[in-house]
């Protein structure tokens, strides 16, 4: 049943705590008890619709928005990193937040070269604005994005002396994938982008440095400019497949099967690369709820840390978030290269794994910077017995699928409720299963 026809819940796949948590993890972060309850009560279709159309109008969100500008003005990239993560912890639009990270990874630009928090923030806002919009708009906006122009030497790209850096990555990493274009296509496309410069953090078209002569790209001839090349890229048969593969890796898991790639690619083409429409199809499809994808992806550091904070309704200082996520290997605004982060197994080595075990410890200590508050949770969710506490913890971390031997062990404990919750969560957050989404 790996296809994009609408899922029908019934005896085969049920809409229950497990499938709802799966959907919410993939489209955002590990859900809090109230998010999970809301999803269960409205059903899968309405949940997806809410995710796609959510508008975050909380006062906290506006506050954080202003803070971002202030941090960027101080050129404090580490603080901006923490600010971004803290916004993920608070957002009511988790899908948009995940897509902003997805685009940051896709159009991987590093402040190591850009050296301007203001430009990085401006780029992030572009990702957020177009998070679920049309891919063409995003591709065009990124082609004119000042941080990207610095990152891939756009300002060095002038008539008579084209710099191929951006054109190459546009084809190789942003739009088509290797093997779908020639070196001549790159050279000609680079000419089309000549004069697309930035000055002091603003896009600026230098007419005098733009080569408006005839170019041949993908066999088509014309006096193309950058916008034409973006259009030609989207029309290229490889583009939809390239993007579909990447989206399926993100939402389903590694190695999406070929027929599914073809199906999503055709959905992307028929919606003119409308991300909201394409994702609506994917997220409500049979493939989305195919058991083979259940806990089939290794969580990114962001999914791991922000998921803990959100699902257990913790307070988390920005700096602690930034430090944890960076140490686990995902230093926002500084992807390792223009290829972005390698996902899945590449997130983990014995060092980063150990750090995850320690994050689990920190989050459940009595004095951790990012820390759970058992008494509040017990009160809020009416947890009165040890069995309540253990069930609550298993539900939130492993969708209630705790191996029996461990459940007995926890239930046999004679701890008080608060230490029992800390102890139980500590091991569950550190369990191999919890590292998977």
């Amino acid at each position, binding site marked *: 049943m790996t296809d994009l026809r609408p899922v029908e819940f019934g005896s085969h796949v049920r809409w229950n705590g497990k499938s709802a948590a799966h959907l919410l993890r993939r489209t955002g972060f590990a859900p809090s008890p109230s998010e999970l309850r809301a999803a269960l009560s409205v059903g899968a279709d309405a949940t997806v619709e809410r995710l796609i159309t959510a508008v975050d109008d909380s006062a906290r969100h506006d506050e954080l928005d202003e803070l971002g500008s202030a941090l960027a003005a101080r050129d404090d990239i580490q603080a901006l990193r923490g600010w971004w993560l803290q916004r993920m912890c608070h957002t009511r639009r988790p899908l948009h937040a995940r897509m902003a990270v997805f685009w940051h990874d896709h159009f991987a630009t590093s402040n*190591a*070269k850009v050296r301007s928090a203001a430009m990085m923030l401006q780029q992030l806002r572009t990702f957020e604005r177009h998070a679920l919009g049309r891919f063409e708009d995003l591709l065009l906006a990124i082609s004119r994005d000042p941080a990207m122009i610095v990152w*891939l*030497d756009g300002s060095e790209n002038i008539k008579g002396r084209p710099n191929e*850096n951006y054109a190459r990555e546009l084809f190789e990493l942003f739009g088509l994938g290797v093997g779908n274009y020639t070196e001549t296509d790159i050279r000609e496309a680079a000419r089309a982008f000549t004069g697309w410069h930035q000055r002091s953090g603003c896009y600026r078209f230098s007419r005098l440095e733009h080569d408006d002569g005839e170019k041949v790209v993908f066999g088509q001839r014309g006096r193309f400019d950058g916008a034409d090349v973006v259009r030609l890229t989207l029309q290229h048969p490889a583009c939809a497949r390239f993007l579909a593969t990447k989206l399926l890796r993100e939402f389903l898991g590694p190695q999406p099967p070929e027929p599914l790639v073809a199906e999503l690619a055709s959905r992307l083409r028929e919606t003119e690369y409308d991300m909201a429409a394409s994702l609506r199809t994917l997220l409500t499809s049979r493939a989305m709820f195919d058991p083979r994808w259940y*806990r*089939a992806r*290794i969580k990114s550091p962001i999914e791991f840390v922000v998921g803990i904070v959100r699902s257990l309704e913790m307070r988390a200082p920005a700096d602690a978030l930034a430090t944890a996520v*960076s*140490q686990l*290997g995902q*230093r926002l605004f*500084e992807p*390792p*290269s*223009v*290829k972005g982060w*390698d996902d*899945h*197994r*590449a*997130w*983990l*080595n*014995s*060092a*980063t*794994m*150990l*750090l995850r*075990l*320690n994050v689990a*410890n*920190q989050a459940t*200590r009595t004095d951790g910077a990012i820390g759970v508050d058992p008494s509040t949770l017990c009160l809020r969710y009416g947890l009165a017995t040890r069995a309540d506490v253990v069930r609550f913890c298993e539900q939130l971390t492993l969708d209630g699928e705790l*191996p029996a*031997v*461990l459940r007995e*062990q926890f239930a046999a404990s004679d701890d008080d409720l608060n230490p029992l919750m800390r*102890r139980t969560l*500590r*091991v*569950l957050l*550190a*369990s*191999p*299963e919890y*590292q*998977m989404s």
Partner: protein
Amino acid sequence: MNITRRDFVARGLGGTTLLASGVSLPGFLTRTAVAAPGADDERILVVIQLTGGNDGLNTVVPFRDDEYHKARPTLRIRADQVLKLTDELGLHPDMAGFKRLHDDGLLAVVNNVGYPNPDRSHFRSMDIWHTADARPEAVDSGWLGRVVDRGAGPSDVPRALHLDEGALPLALKNQRVAVPSLRNIDAFRLQGDTEDLQRVIGASRRDASDDLLFVQRLAVSSCANARRLERVGAGSAVSSPYPDYRLALRLRQIAQLIGARFGPRIYYTSLDGFDTHARQALAHGPLLRELSDSVTAFYDDLRQRRIADRVVVLTFSEFGRRVGENGSQGTDHGAAAPMFVMGPAVRAGVVGGRPDLTRLIDGDVRHECDFRRVYAGVLRDWLAVDPDSILGRRFDPLAIIRS
């Protein structure tokens, strides 16, 4: 002390927790848990970056050269102050530790190291040293990152480690597996009560996917790493003393990790503050003392651990400084400068003569040895990696390591 397989099983995952809990660990997990990733004879490279542009002329001083004394009316170091290495060159008086390493046959100086058309921007020149590539195109991997990418061995063992403040240096950037970057090794300790944890991690799973088994194996080996580290950490109470410097603290941790066979072959750390544009003498001596005393203590520790033979230390800075001092009793950005290569494996002594201060380029010391020749020598003769494939083209490897 070597940790034997039986010893480890008895003290580690095997003995106390898993058996007691009655949950059996699949065989391959047991093997992973007990197999220490670093072999006993594995060669280690420790890179210390001197950030800011170290003044080479006041580090390795051409004390007989009149040109030097003329160019440095206030900053010059007199012949009777230097710690002599040769008839012409001597170390800054604060570097007694390096002098001792030299006399013990553990220290090589490669003098006048640089690259053609030197760039005087900190950022740009640092990038050139990190990528080993002076071409203007963006290179997104570092020379050590490329070594990591070529590395064989299990992917769950970190092959390089950045132990420092700040972001992962470009030198360690690579394409394949993330290089961990940590401020200190406390992060490598398994925190909190571990008994429940190891029971959950070790419990056998029915119908586990390959990916889940991969994660489980890592979790088990992480705990094993932490245990190894704990044991070596406990043993380090008897290790030789270190001075109270931040660099020394980091080197002590690196010594512990090497002793624990934690896995990385490459360690990277730095010492910042060498951008001495004004009143240089106040800052430069203390920095050189921190470098010299810290590395010396590091080797004393390594010798005590009987692993000094396996470790080579390399220092570099993005550039040296102008020959002539400026009007603020400081020096501005320059070009070629010395590198230090240390360890029992190096050919001790001074490579390259004193800088020719009558043949300057734009007021700077001209380079006689391309830094990539030093890299190539270390790559070929120490890390046993083909230097050409790492450096992208042929540089004649400098024979700095004893064969």
